[in-house]
């Protein structure tokens, strides 16, 4: 089903900026960026059965890698930003992953959470390096070596940058699709379903978990790198645990037992949060209630529920 829908959705995403205003396009860009992070996160949760509460760390590493490149190396190329973010997230994810994949279930979750908090406190306390709570500013980058032709940042973000993010998003979706449908992806699902049996068909559990952790972290790091120019600033907030919670939230919202769930969840969550923040000061409470209702009423998420309804309708018509 996913492959059949991919082309019309890609066409829609290409044409959409012509039909909606720049603000809506920027919102959609945020959604696509978070979808990359959620896709990466779901390789661990949905396919390997590991719930990470520390993905803010890898998102933050990507974002801060870009900010450091701007501040200390005076880099302004988006391609170099992405490269730097990938290298930085490989290093940090490998370090954290080495410790985390030795554990599962609550121990894994707590360890990922604790390690992300270490990064947050470093970003918070070493303000002479990280800018502390003031954060670090990131100006408009050059895309494919070309500087923005427009002085208007909104115009840049809603046109050139949107299409840049869309292209990276498409590559990430294709890559993740390949990974989860590869023999490696099958091995991860086997580990998720039955660790003991997976060992007894010859799968080296810890090594596979580590690779999944690494890939997951790199995807989230790429999302962080794409997010900074969009936001214009990075602060320790994106390393703090509630941000990890948001990544979990969007994945559960869309449904973590299918490929497209995290993508849909990320885009919907982004709109949900934006409008909740705009309408009430109690937006966190509102999102909390939505999460509770979601878990109770739609445990398979938006995409999972649509799938169930479609299956039910098919059954009805075939009778």
């Amino acid at each position, binding site marked *: 089903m996913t492959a059949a829908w991919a082309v019309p959705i890609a066409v829609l995403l290409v044409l959409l900026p012509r039909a909606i205003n720049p603000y809506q396009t920027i919102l959609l860009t945020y959604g696509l960026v978070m979808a990359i992070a959620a896709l990466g996160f779901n390789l661990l949760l949905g396919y390997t059965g590991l719930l990470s509460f520390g993905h803010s760390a890898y998102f933050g590493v990507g974002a801060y890698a870009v900010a450091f490149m701007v501040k200390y190396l005076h880099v302004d190329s988006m391609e170099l930003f992405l490269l730097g973010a990938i290298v930085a997230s490989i290093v940090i994810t490998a370090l954290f992953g080495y410790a985390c994949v030795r554990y599962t279930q609550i121990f894994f979750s707590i360890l990922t959470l604790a390690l992300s908090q270490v990064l947050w406190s470093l970003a918070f306390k070493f303000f002479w390096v990280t800018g502390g709570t003031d954060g670090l500013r990131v100006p408009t980058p050059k895309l494919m070596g070309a500087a923005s032709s427009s002085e208007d940042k909104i115009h840049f973000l809603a046109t050139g940058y949107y299409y840049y993010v869309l292209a990276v998003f498409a590559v990430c979706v294709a890559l993740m699709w*390949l*990974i989860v449908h590869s023999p490696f*992806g099958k*091995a991860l699902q086997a580990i998720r379903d*039955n660790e*003991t049996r997976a060992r*007894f*068909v*010859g799968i080296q559990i810890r090594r596979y978990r580590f690779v999944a952790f690494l890939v997951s972290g790199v995807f989230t790091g790429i999302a962080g790198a794409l997010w900074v120019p969009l936001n214009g600033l990075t602060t320790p907030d994106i390393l703090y645990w509630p941000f990890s919670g948001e990544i979990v939230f969007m994945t559960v919202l869309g449904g973590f037992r299918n490929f497209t769930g995290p993508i849909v969840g990320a885009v919907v969550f982004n709109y949900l949060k934006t409008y909740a923040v705009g309408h009430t000061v109690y937006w966190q409470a509102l999102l909390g209630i939505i999460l509770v209702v979601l878990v109770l009423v739609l445990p398979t998420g938006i995409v999972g529920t649509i799938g169930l309804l479609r299956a039910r309708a098919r059954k009805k018509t075939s009778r």
Partner: protein
Amino acid sequence: MSLLETRKLTKSFGDTLAVDKIDFAIGEGEVLALIGSNGAGKTTLVNLISGLVQPDSGQILFREKDVTNQSVAGRIQAGIARSFQIVNLFDELTVVDNVALSIFSREGLTRHFWSLADLHHPVWEEAHDILRQFGLEDKASALAGGISQGERKLLDVAVAYALKPRLLFLDEPTSGVSTREKAPIMDVISSIVRSQKIAAVVIEHDMDIIFRYSDRIVVMNQGVILASGILEEIKQDPVVREMVFGPSHA
């Protein structure tokens, strides 16, 4: 020459000596039944040889190579596979996926993240062929968690068989299935094991199954091997008769 040999293999859990200096051997293509009362140490012995638990002392030789400290994956590569007393399957994957995973792993393909699993046609052909041999072909696309207990037992063995082992441990392959289903399940397993000349160690409590399908019987009690021999020898052993058939048969 033995295919597998253990020398003074010992394992204790706390104060309980589960396996006590066991010397055990099985030859190429031999089908051996491992019997004994609950707690005799049968499953622990299989767990030690298959690598699920590490021995306190002793040696495990497979094809004259010391595999005592090898990982589970290393032992599988060497040719040791097992099924489980309580069925261990990938319940959320399809029946054919379960078997294909063993083949992907055996062929070292599970490291491939750059190719679609569906495009590895020889793997799927072999997986379907194995399912045909086990009589599970019509369940190929069903979820492993959704088939009957008898079928799950067969699939559990099929997943191990797909690793192309030289030695297969079958831990109670008919436990939890109806009496009516036991013989057909063992018929399928036995014909495959014998036709491929795979050595098999069957742990069973059902004496009819043991007498019908095994070449040799090893009797364990309280962590030691009590007796070993062909069916007629075992039947004559008074200690075994008392233990297996009860005091009135001693």
